[in-house]
């Protein structure tokens, strides 16, 4: 396992809190599928409050391994084309339930070291 990913796994095991990540399908009616996983949730520092990020936003850090193990979000429509995004990644308008509060995923930033995804950072608000 990549060193950075192993360090994140250790940090999540030590300090992470359980969150629920939710993908909804359809509008009215809609269905959803959840996965529970460990995450590090924190606010942004004053230095990070730039480019539309506000004090009420939170940064959620999760491990790609947890999503892979759960095979979240499950069976998907096969994607084709040159610019196919990783189906494991959360996306805008997924929901994160943190300490009973449902928050909206605004942006997702996977971080790679070499070819390996070593962490997923999400900006959530609401």
């Amino acid at each position, binding site marked *: 396992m990549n060193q950075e990913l192993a360090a994140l796994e250790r940090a999540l095991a030590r300090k992470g809190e359980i969150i629920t990540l939710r993908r909804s399908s*359809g*509008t*009215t*009616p809609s269905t959803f*599928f959840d996965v529970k996983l460990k995450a590090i949730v924190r606010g942004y520092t004053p230095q990070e409050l730039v480019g539309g990020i506000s004090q009420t936003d939170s940064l959620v850090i999760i491990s790609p391994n947890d999503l892979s*193990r759960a*095979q979240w979000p499950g069976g998907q*429509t096969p994607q084709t084309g040159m610019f196919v995004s990783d189906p494991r990644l959360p996306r805008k308008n997924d929901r994160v339930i943190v300490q009973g509060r449902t928050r909206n995923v605004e942006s997702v930033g996977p971080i790679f070291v070499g070819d390996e995804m070593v962490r997923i950072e999400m900006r959530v608000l609401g």
Partner: protein
Amino acid sequence: MLNPGLYALADRAITTALNEAQTPIVDLEGVTAVSLQARLAYGSGGTTAKAYVQTSLDQGVTWIDVACFAFATAGAVKVTNLSAFTPRILTVAPPDGALADDTVVDGLLGDRLRVRIVTTGTYSSSVVSVRAAVR
């Protein structure tokens, strides 16, 4: 078995007629039983919507229908279960999207599962969902 748990095999908003296999759930080696639930969350329109739950015994080259959930123009939930221990006395020509409505082929469970969704007519605001509790 490896990786028992609850999986989403499909969550597909349906509109125009389609015949589409969803991406598979894999790494289920050693699975002995699967409980399945299919739901049509119905909005309006459409004619028929079928969800074929499929498995593969050759790492995804050939897909075999093991359950067919058939819906029409009303919301519904249907469930069934499959066991790997059910002996099959006769061989089966593996159907792919051709199993009779609301039937199962018990006793065949490979290391992966997927759903093929086949619809006719044009649905609106409708979702086909299939869950599998694998153990």
